[in-house]
């Protein structure tokens, strides 16, 4: 196991370094930041001074060398927009996204497992049909539209929830609801499909022949064997949430890493772009390790 973890970690470090190199050069291709940071009527001298202050007047390969040297000293650079450590900016935003993603994934996965299993227990029954319609609608509804409609209904119309922002539990309701919709919809479909396949297996027939209750058969035997594909899909969905729920963060004013990353790309805040990508890439690497470990827990045949 330790050997496996070590091997995964070394591969991930190489991948992350490759990613950072790519991001470094791609961000430099987006153009000169002074066009965005200085007023349009700034003088060429002011632009030259800005480039010098931020080390942008040096050849790109020298900038890259400086970046790598700083990286070794854990100096991730300074945000040109916010005038403070780029890594501090990224680490301040990341927990906000992580909390949102964790709660949304926990609720949507838990709910999807229950709904998908019950739907598969009686295929083409009323519950199965309702679950299919709701999950398909959830998977295909545009986040942006759902978020705005939710605000109009619950905040402006009924005045029972705040429009946006962060604070007590009431501020979590709408962002979580909107964020859950797509994972819930997709996971219900996946759970239903894998459960139908498991329920048709010979070992289920044996379990039924032994006289086990329907609940014990569905949740005790079939579900456990159906969870591997569910975890694969859930892991993929969680990865996209960790990368940032940009739309939800933008609409609800949630100060997460997704919006920060997009804003930094638009504003050419190179150090912050690099830091946010480093943070999310590391988080995704850890998540993938966790998923691999879960495989081993759920399926005794999987060994590392």
């Amino acid at each position, binding site marked *: 196991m330790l050997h496996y973890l070590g091997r995964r970690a070394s591969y991930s470090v190489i991948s992350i370094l490759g990613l950072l190199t790519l991001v470094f050069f791609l961000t430099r291709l987006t153009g000169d930041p002074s066009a965005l940071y200085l007023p*349009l*009527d700034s*003088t060429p001298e002011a632009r030259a001074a800005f480039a010098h202050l931020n080390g942008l007047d040096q050849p790109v390969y020298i900038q890259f060398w400086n970046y790598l040297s700083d990286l070794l000293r854990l100096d991730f650079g300074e945000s040109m*927009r916010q*005038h403070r450590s780029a890594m501090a900016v990224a680490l301040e935003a990341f927990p906000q996204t992580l909390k949102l993603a964790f709660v949304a994934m926990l609720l949507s996965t838990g709910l999807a497992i229950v709904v998908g299993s019950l739907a598969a227990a009686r295929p083409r029954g009323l519950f199965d049909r309702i679950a299919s319609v709701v999950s398909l609608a959830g998977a295909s509804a545009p986040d942006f539209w759902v978020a705005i409609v939710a605000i109009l209904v619950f*905040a402006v119309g009924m005045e029972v*929830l705040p*429009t946006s922002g962060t604070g007590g539990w009431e501020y979590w309701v709408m962002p979580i609801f909107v964020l859950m919709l797509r994972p819930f919809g997709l996971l219900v479909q996946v759970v239903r499909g894998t459960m139908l396949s498991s329920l048709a297996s010979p070992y289920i027939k044996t379990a039924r022949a032994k006289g086990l209750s329907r609940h014990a058969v569905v949740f005790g035997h079939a579900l456990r064997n159906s969870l591997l594909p569910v975890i694969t899909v859930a892991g993929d969905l969680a990865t996209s949430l960790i990368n940032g729920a940009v739309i939800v963060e933008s609409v609800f004013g949630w100060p997460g890493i997704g919006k920060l990353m997009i804003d930094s790309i638009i504003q050419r805040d190179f150090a912050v772009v690099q830091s946010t990508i480093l943070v999310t890439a590391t988080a995704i690497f850890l998540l993938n390790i966790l998923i691999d470990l879960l495989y081993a827990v759920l399926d005794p045949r999987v060994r590392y």
Partner: protein
Amino acid sequence: MKRAGIYSLVSAALMAVAAGPALAQGGSHDVRIVLPEQPANLEPCGSIVTNVGQVLNQNVTEPLTVIDAKTGKPEPKLATGWEQIDADTWRLKLRQGVKFHDGADFNAKAVAYSIERMTGGKLTCNNMAKFGNAKLTVKPVDDYTVEIKSDRPQPILPTLLSVVMVVSPNTPADKAVNDPVGTGPFKLTTFTPQTVVLDPFDGYWGKKPVVTKATYVWRQESSIRAAMVETGEADLTPSIAIQDASNPKTDFAYLNSETTAIRIDLAQPPLNDVRIRKALNLAIDWDGLGQLFGDDIQRASQMVVPGIIGHDDKLQPWKYDAAQAKKLVAAAKADGVKVDTEIKLIGRNGIYPNGAEAMEAMMTMWRSAGLNVKLVMLDVADWVRYLQKPYPAERGATLLQMMHDNNKGDAAFTIPIFYRSSGQYSVLNDPALDKEIDAAMAASGQAREDGFKKLFDKMRNEVVPDIPMFHMLGYTRVGNRLNWKPDITTNSEIPLANIQFKN
């Protein structure tokens, strides 16, 4: 028993939900302002950036002078008076009895420090753009008198000083700050990724504002900002989209000092023919186009809004005359002008609401007039290449969508940039015109105003280097409990001292 327990839980949850979110309303005089964007930083030297200025200007930090929104003239703030010693030098009398939030004294040395911090080149200072390349030296004469000398004549230095935010001498000179210390009626308490909070400064030299606390939050979506004011979560938002300004009781339109226009690259054929440039102005159905920007929109005849020194109220905007436009194009064609040369209309994505739609409509109208106009929409980084010198060599005939903001009270912030040969956005190269501009810039009082008016007249009627479109409107939503109206300065500052309460 079990069921009763569940009912109790559900009832409690419903009651908690019904209690609703915390609202901005109430008996207190705390205000909550929702901005469109998070201030990236709170460096006073960058306070010409809208969302920084709307928090800091005249709240946390104060300038030496302020511009009167109605007259466009400089008024005293931390400087109480000024006189011009010679063409390059001004002497300022400073207000006495003023303290910074950190207890430091406001005096001539503090002013010298603030200006040297701005001009020292150790930090990026956006506000310095208003001074161009001028080198300023500041000499304290006594504790409350300073002399400011420039390396070139500065007839409107008091106006320019409205962008000099005076900071405590304890502010680092070599790095930008996010915790500004000024002399304003409010001091910064909190700046986080979610909020900025300002609390009153007890040692303020002036009249105590009615507002007892200001909390700034930011939401990118206009509809969310509007909803926040409607539900009472915020008291005002300085900017909402026209489609969200649907409540006449709370939503106010105001002239926001921005003028939209198309710049004509008159060095390139066929745009080097004045008949084509006039035809471009005549071919637009301005009333129809104005529908894109709302009923209250104002047509522009020049690149500054009314109220700016140099604006000529008598100058008429171009009228729509498609037949005359076609005639001018035909006459130019008859004289050998290649009117079928492709003209690139360069638009900028997101420059202002409905900006792309306006470009589509204008391209169609110009084509109807017989010109071969092709629209290219660019993002800001690419668009800037066409806006500023040096222009791309291979650009060909171009028309450039642009928007100019002059809220500094004087056409000096417009005319040399657009019309002087050395101007950063200029497509003109006329030494005689440069002399006229220099003369107007060096003049003061009525001669200055008349000089600028004459130049705008010349541009409108003889040179025609641009197509002024509209003086733009901003829309704000103001909550029911506030007594506050936006004005031309709202884009750059929201002084909390100007906010009153209805009850």
